[in-house]
């Protein structure tokens, strides 16, 4: 094993302890970001919706991941046609 790989392994071991908790916090932040971008689709007015809509193609896959994680097999929003 190379020295660099050894360092990476060691780094991973030490980061492992709080990995899940931080991943969960990041995921919650991303969900909130999603809500801020597309709140208009839920009936919450969003003055920047015209611009945030441009991100739609980039967010499609992430939205699919979100609704399946929430236990919904199909997209709950008609605006998002991911599946």
């Amino acid at each position, binding site marked *: 094993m190379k020295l660099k790989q050894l360092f990476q392994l060691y780094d*991973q*071991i030490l980061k*492992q*302890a*709080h990995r899940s908790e931080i*991943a969960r*916090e990041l995921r919650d932040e991303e969900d909130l970001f999603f809500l801020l971008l597309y709140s208009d689709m839920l009936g919450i007015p969003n003055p920047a919706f015209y611009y945030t809509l441009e991100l739609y193609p980039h967010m499609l896959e992430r939205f699919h991941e979100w609704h399946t*994680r929430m236990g919904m097999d199909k997209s709950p929003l008609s605006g998002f046609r991911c599946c």
Partner: protein
Amino acid sequence: MNAILLALIGMFIFFLGYRYYSKFVAERIYRLDPNFVTPANEFNDGVDFVPTNKWVLWGHHFTSVAGAAPIVGPAIAIYWGWLPAFVWVVLGTVFAAGVHDFGALALSVRHKGQSVGTLADKIIGQRAKILFLFIILILVLMVNAVFAWVISNLFIRFPASVLSVFIQIPLAIWIGYLVYRKKGGMLFPSLAALATMYIAAVTASRIPALQLDLPRYFGGEETIVAFGLNGVAFSFFVWITILMIYVYIASTLPVWKLLQPRDYINSHQLVVGLAILYLGLFFSNPAITAPATNSAATDMPWIPILFITIACGAISGFHGLVASGTSSKQLNREPEARLVGYGGAVGEGLLALASIIAVATLFGSQGDFLGAYDSFAAANAGGLGNFVQGAGELATGLLIPADIATTIVAVIVVSFAATTLDTSVRLMRYIIAELGKEYNVMPLTKTHVATTIAVVASAALVLLPEGPQGFGSGGYVLWPLFGTSNQLLAAITLLLITLWLKRQGRNYFVALVPMIFLLVMTLYAMARQILLEWSGFGGSDLNILLFGLGAVIFVFAFWILIEAIVAFGKRKPTLPKDKAM
């Protein structure tokens, strides 16, 4: 006897245990299947369920379970001589801890990565789950109280360590900022932080002005400072108060801000600590001066008290929480459970073995040992300090001056204890919130309410017992209660493993025998402590706090025994048979 020989014998038995016994358990008893789809692969969500490299998982499991507890217990238990402690650590690790940690992991992997608490509900019933929650609550309460006392005691006994420990907090916050705001790596800044801490330790060892020696500032035992407390008692009070304020803040902050970078630095310290102990041992080649068995230890019988004095290091229920709580959700292939679970227990056994050797080689002669360990109370109060000094002496084999090495070891042990304290307060907060949900008391589910209850209850518990130096210095009397609650938790996990194996029609004696041993020793120890030490009868002093806590733990232990008998006699299976065999 030569200390190196003792270490080699211990390591050789651990090796045999891992090589042969764990292989037998893995293949014949738990029957690990390389084709079984583990929860990490079945439910991979990138957060909780993530297939992880087996060495990363072993390292994580080991660093999570290895703390100050496997050091403190053996350093106290050497009171009966090094031989009983050595035999219990070695055989306990091979036949009890290994099977327990490995079994908790295997059981959880076979049940969708569910935790031991949830499995207790499924396998035994709702009563068992509530019992389980209360035992964990008592355990974490004990951990908070005991470790707050341990840290305060080390600060008072080794004031040169204070500066390094407090420097670590801003350094950790800086690393957290660097990593999560500036997108940097954590390895090199954390090594720089560690170096800074050790430079501070070296400097403080040599410059008395940098040592925060509270008892000296407050005038020592002769001066009454406030509330009728002398200088030492008041120092305990001040340190415990500061620690409680610190854990409140640390356990409510987001983990990336302080806890993760601090734990990261502390994991380096585990490596440094083990290296100092074992390399120092092999280079200095000290003789064991402690007696193999101490015939002068007559005020406390080693059976059953040894088995509750050394919990972590021989067997610990806390490991089952880690194994079934996080490790089981990250195991990539089922056969890797052997390395992670059994290997993690062996790692902890090595730490306990190092603790025995450090204390057994510290004293110049057997007379010195008998002077320091002249009563069980003296062993409880001074055990950890003796370990720190013993480890400092071993480090002289690496050409590190003893005073500097002692300070560095004190910093390492305080860091371990602080990590345990942080985690434990956080865990207690979650349990209080869960109990609040269970009994529909919604205020308990609020972060600050739950944390306040956790911190105030822990502070009250550590400050109440009277020690030789008065108010606040008696936290060590809680150690046997901590050991007992930890063993009870392990007994519940072993009971679950036994029932699971019975349902699969396999040989369940590997789990049943350690479970019965633990329950018998725990019941015997608690009955003895309650009646002969704390009840006020037969010449003993009445101690209402210890009597009450001991009685609660005794009832829980008895309850588990009844649940075990009922669950064992049930004809109707409570668990479906595993599909992949």
